[in-house]
């Protein structure tokens, strides 16, 4: 019998018998994705939009109950925007900018994210993960209508894999029994406890944090403002720390740090959760419980994200603590990074070794995320007496002294990483701003007609700032689209500041994932070709 492992929030792709199950010979697909969480759906969307046939196997028929991720960062929204589903996310999501930090019974300070102006997307939105995944799935359906070869199969559980030099063989369990499939490439997006890692003997150790957190998502019509409130050692004693954060639909995320040695069953009883909530909110507030869970976490990553024809992405490859919202957000950056590379390789336009650069770049990203979330975790849950003393000293001082506030770390906002000094990077010979150096994700900027990022992505772009560039350049079958922008227009002032600084002209080679591959002061065809080949792993 086929048993679900968790209840569903949205049933989206009910089991249907696929033609593959009735073939005598095993069917081979270019790409199979194992797991239809945000990362699996995201990569399917990316590949499908390029016309690369992709089969997603998920062992459920939709999206699991329980919100898990709630904070989605600007970079994630930009990626979703490129796929066509950013706006629905922002429309549904809650935008917040103000955060308050409390210690015991007093507010130690308040901060405003003060998002930089001139970006299409907000710094952050709060949105329940099931909505995020549903919007990705609905976009997949849109793309299928337009002809994208994406096939999402519910109740298809991968039970075994066998790896070969040039393909992977899978055994898949369905309500109709098992069938076999082959894939030129298998992408493991099967989550933190990745069965695929187990099947391949790639289990790994990490740093386990000896603490557990109780999450309660509750629905209430409360007067609380749309802000993020974080308590260290709250006076209401519901936990060693507590977090209150707003989500759409009048739902609030409350998170209590409850310690390591807890009786999970006892703590998960509704009456006990309500005791903690009532102590925090006051007896008079009425609310419904939407979802609750106890979680612990680890910070770790695989040593390599590529193993022959198997590629790992998202939580299966790396895990972080939730502080700083770097799980799903970094998973979407994996998607963004892998999509165009695998597309080129599958279409025979780039060598297989390009996939190694996915591993290189995203390991660099994962290490940065692990470092940041470990630091936040150490601040929130100090592990020694002296660490606790310093933490509280910071909090004490931050009430009166501005200097101590940057030391308060209740989770840093997830930022995309700059691939400094990595293999695909080309020349950086423009004396331009540091934020647009080679390896950086392109910062957005307003234009006469909308925003810069709307014009980038999906293909290689050659951006000529006050410089003529060819409209199209073909390098070994890979097109580079040229685009000239003059920065003299007042509407382009921020674009000028972000991409030229004090320089008069510039030429940027931008990858399909909107990261900068090379930049120069003036256009030169030979150098452009060279940089393109390097960015595609050919040199």
């Amino acid at each position: 019998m086929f048993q679900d492992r968790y209840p569903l929030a949205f049933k989206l792709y009910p089991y249907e018998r696929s033609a593959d199950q009735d073939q005598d010979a095993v069917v081979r697909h270019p790409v199979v994705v194992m797991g239809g969480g945000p990362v699996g759906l995201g990569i399917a969307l990316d590949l499908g939009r390029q016309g690369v046939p992709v089969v997603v196997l998920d062992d459920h028929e939709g999206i699991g109950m329980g919100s898990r991720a709630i904070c989605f960062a600007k970079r994630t929204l930009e990626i979703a925007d490129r796929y066509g589903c950013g706006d629905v996310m922002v429309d549904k999501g809650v935008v917040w900018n103000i955060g308050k930090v409390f210690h015991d019974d007093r507010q130690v300070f308040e901060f405003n994210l003060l998002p930089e102006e001139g970006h299409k997307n907000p710094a952050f939105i709060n949105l329940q993960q099931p909505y995020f995944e549903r919007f990705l799935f609905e976009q997949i359906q849109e793309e299928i209508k337009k002809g994208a070869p994406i096939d999402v199969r519910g109740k298809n559980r991968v039970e075994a894999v066998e790896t070969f030099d040039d393909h992977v063989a899978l055994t898949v369990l369905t309500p109709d029994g098992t069938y076999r499939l082959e894939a030129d490439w298998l992408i493991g997006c099967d989550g933190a406890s990745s069965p695929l890692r187990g099947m391949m003997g790639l289990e790994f150790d990490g740093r386990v944090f000896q603490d557990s957190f109780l999450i309660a998502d509750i629905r209430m019509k409360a007067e609380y403002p749309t802000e993020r409130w974080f308590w260290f050692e709250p006076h209401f004693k519901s936990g060693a720390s507590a977090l209150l954060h707003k989500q759409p639909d009048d739902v609030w995320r409350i998170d209590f740090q409850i310690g390591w040695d807890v009786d999970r069953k006892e703590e998960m009883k509704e009456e006990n959760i309500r005791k903690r909530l009532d102590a925090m909110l006051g007896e008079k507030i009425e609310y419904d419980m939407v979802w609750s869970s106890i979680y612990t976490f680890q910070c770790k990553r695989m040593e390599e994200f590529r193993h022959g024809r198997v590629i790992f992405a998202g939580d299966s490859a790396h895990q972080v603590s939730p502080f700083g919202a770097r799980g799903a957000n970094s998973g979407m950056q994996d998607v963004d990074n892998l999509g165009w590379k695998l597309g080129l390789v599958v279409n025979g336009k780039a060598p297989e070794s390009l996939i190694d650069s996915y591993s290189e770049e995203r390991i660099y990203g994962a290490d940065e995320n692990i470092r940041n979330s470990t630091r936040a975790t150490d601040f929130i849950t100090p592990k020694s007496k002296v660490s606790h003393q310093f933490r509280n000293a910071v909090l004490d001082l931050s009430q009166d002294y501005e200097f101590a506030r940057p030391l308060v770390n209740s989770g840093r906002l997830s930022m995309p990483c700059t691939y400094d000094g990595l293999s695909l990077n080309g020349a950086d010979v423009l004396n331009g701003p540091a934020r647009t150096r080679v390896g950086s994700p392109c910062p957005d900027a307003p234009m006469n007609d909308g925003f810069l990022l709307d014009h980038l992505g999906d293909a290689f772009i050659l951006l000529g700032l006050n410089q003529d560039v060819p409209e199209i350049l073909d390098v070994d079958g890979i097109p580079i689209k040229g685009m000239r922008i003059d920065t003299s227009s007042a509407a382009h002032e921020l674009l000028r500041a972000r991409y030229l600084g004090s320089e008069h002209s510039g030429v940027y080679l931008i990858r399909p994932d909107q990261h900068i591959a090379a930049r120069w002061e003036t256009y030169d065809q030979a150098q452009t070709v060279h940089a393109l080949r390097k960015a595609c792993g050919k040199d």
Partner: protein
Amino acid sequence: MGELITKANIADADQFYEDLIEAHADLSEDESQALNSRLILILANHVGDMHVLAQALHAARAKAR
């Protein structure tokens, strides 16, 4: 980039030392530790220079068993 000053730099050493001990008067062990923590943070911010701070941490750590 500055360098950690390791030559005598406090004009009235005896007075400073007396003030330092005096600042802890009547404090419990924990309160004293908390004061020290605050003091370190205040001074570290005053120094600011990461290189000097690293040298200071190293110099202090070298004396730990």
